[in-house]
């Protein structure tokens, strides 16, 4: 492939977040990690981040209603 998928305009920014941050997030939501929406380990958008099972990905998306919105997904 001659281009980076993450640079495509339809692919939102994906970042792995730190463990402490994850715990903070879970405490705030009052749930366990399993309740988060899932994302595949080999999803092209996060492949290059070399994610491990159980990592949490932060996604910064464009939104029609809010301009920009943050979403979290758990790697499985």
């Amino acid at each position, binding site marked *: 492939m001659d281009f980076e998928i993450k640079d495509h305009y339809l692919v939102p920014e994906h970042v792995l977040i730190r463990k402490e941050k994850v715990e903070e997030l879970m405490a705030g*939501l*009052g*749930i366990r990690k399993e*309740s*988060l*929406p899932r994302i595949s380990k080999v999803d092209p958008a996060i492949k290059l981040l070399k994610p491990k099972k159980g990592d949490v990905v932060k996604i910064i998306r464009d*939104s*029609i*209603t*809010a301009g920009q*919105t*943050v*979403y*979290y997904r758990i790697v499985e």
Partner: protein
Amino acid sequence: MLMKKIGSVEFNFLTPELVRKMSAIEITTPETYDKDGFPMEGGLMDPHLGVINPGIRCKTCGQQMRQCSGHFGHLELERPIVHSEFGKKLELLMQATCKECGKILLPDDQIAKLKEMSRGRTVDYTKKIVLKTKDVKKCPHCKGEHGKMLLDKPTNFFYDKERIYPTQIREWVEKITNEDIKLFGYNPERIRPEWFIPTVLQVPPITIRPSITLDSGIKSEDDLTHKLVDIIRINLRLKDNIEAGAPQLIIEDLWDLLQYHVTTYFDNNTAGVPPAKHRSGRPLRTIIQRLKGKKGRFRYNLTGKRVNHAARSIIVPDPYIDISELGVPEDAAKELTVPEFVTEWNLANVKTQIKESTAHVYIIRPNGTRRKVTEENREEILKEVDTGYRIERNLQDGDIVLFNRQPSLHRISMLGHKARILPGKVFRLNPIVCAPYNADFDGDEMNCHVPQTEEGKVEAKRLMMVRDHIISPRYGAPIIAPKEDIVSGAFALTIPQTKFTKEEAMRLLYSMGVTELPKPDLGKNYSGRMIFSHTLPKDLNLEYDSYTHKILKKAGICEEDCKENCKHGAYVKIVDGKLVSGIIDSASLSEGKGIIIDTIARNYPSEVIEKFYHNLARLTSHILTEEGMTASLAEFDISENARAIKKRVLSETLRKGEELVEKYKKETLEIIPGRTLDESFEIYMMRLGTEAKEKVEIEIMKEKLDYVLCEKVIFNTIAMILAKSRGSATNLMNIGGFWGQASVREGRPKKGFDKRLISSNEKGDVGIHAGGFIESNFLEGMTPKEYFYHSMGGRQGEVDTGVSTKVSGYLYRRLANSLKDVLAAPDGTVRTAANNIVQYTYGEDGVFPKNTKRGVGVDVKEEYAKMKSGN
């Protein structure tokens, strides 16, 4: 709360061993009751199977009627029977295995390959195996002959055209090894194929097949019991005959009969088997019929819930009740009840109710026992009732009820109303509240539910009342809004020519509850605007174009910058709750766009909009009945002048059409970017038709405006068009002008005969007339050819509505069902019932559409204007 999570669910075959083990008693005799009417020991009504009569204890568990849920019995069959649901599976198994050794009819290496593929798991390779073994004539293992299997559905098997009996089949499939059976998709730990030919049957508990004692004292048995009696009777006869050493032929006949009874006991609709009938000729409802289909246990009893305290009737419009009210028929109110707590404040009231009520009243004591009030005990109860009691009284004015119309597609399909008990047999609904229910009055029926608890009542009152749902939660604009008559009435009321004498004004104002007569504003008379102003809140300030004004501008009668000095008084200006100028029409009142209702519903307490609608409905009904609003055919006919314009436009269009055809044929036509020549030509022709129509349409509309603009106004179709309450300029055009281009799927009709729409046209003619242009109108009538073109367009409309309602309805249902448990949590996240996250902020912006203006959370321009003006 203790919550357990279901890890997995597995459906299994009930093993014969288990059937015998869980059986409370073996059933041996076909008799149900002895001659004294007591259940027979070992019969189908044996008390070991459960209790259906009060006061008797179960012989198995010792519990009483409600506690004991019943126990299964069992029945040993003299000869095995093929279970009719498994015939096909047996056939496949026997086709693929050897009769002699029970091995799969494949060479060892192929079987090994399959086993390798399955890696020890249970995988269904039946199709593969059957395909390969179809033509095998000789077993590769024991070298025995393999004949052809044939299944005469549902239960009769033939091997090499010779009947084989269940005993033989059983022996055959018993030989199949556990290793081999895995390859057919059966887990040998759970299931063995010989169980498809049962030798033992479960007898269901009597609780699921209760006998009914008729008034005449005759006992009537359940269909399942009847069927079981048949099975046992034949089973016994079979046993006797075998023991007596009867000829094989007789035994086989009885065996087949037993097979028939067992088959119909499971499914009385088996293909190829005549359904078993009741004595009366009615087919029996056996096990599968009980469960299956719309009237089956699942769809009818488990998914379909029925409630008490509900009523259903036809709805009828009544503009004289409030939008939050519901006219409940007296007959319904006598049946519906509400429990009410007796307190020191309502004790006296409750006592009068008990004394005077003619319908059923119950009292509920603090310990929960209920007592009906009758003539005999009325005095006694009056003395007894005190605070802490509850009284179940009839529905009365002011009670909160829920009103609903199916299909309940969104939350506003069910709203809270205040009951108003009225004579008649129908529900009365203010026509303004049609929109959320999508109701009309051509025979629609609706349901009414009465909340029974204080919590329910409060919830309905706080969250569900009609007046709190004027703004749609879907798109943030008014949904509960007047239409048709009320809008027309408002138009007739506020048009400048409308004047009222003092007497008329007094009547109108009094109907709104105004008791002080204001000073007349037109000499001795009152203007309609002045009357209307009394419906508005005192601090309302608005300024905008009415719909009528927009049309006047479009027709060139009013200038573009025409405002409050409009000589037709169409520009709306409201100053401090006074309608200074302007016609109130759909721009002020309509669903989605009405500015007045939008402003009132948003900026004032909900009682204000309720009151506004109350007054509006009264005023407009009044003016419409006094002035009248009607349509006549004459108003659709056009003047000589308009006729001339129509003629000119038509001939011009014709000429242009010919030019286009010529250019198209010479291929000099200017091609629209992204289109082919053919497509461009079609688009040009289509445009030509619509342009011609528009030109004439505006002329006709202009000419018709006179009906409303003149001194002596006539309220007819034109008034309705101007108010945008019903009808359109296009309707006028179609009746009095010409129909224009017929269209099928946004283009000229194409399909039909080869290269032409109808056989009377020239082949390959692409001209304006051959392409479906209609010069006639409904008043003159169309030519046969035009009528045909018109029908082509009409048919599409018909098909589209049919298909789209069906498709979109189902799509909506699936969406709604999958989203029904998703809800916004208190922290703003959206979660499923299992507490899984769907969205981290509701709608990504955390804004509820109902609190927006047409989807916009904050209108920056408006906020800026507010800041600037210093508010």
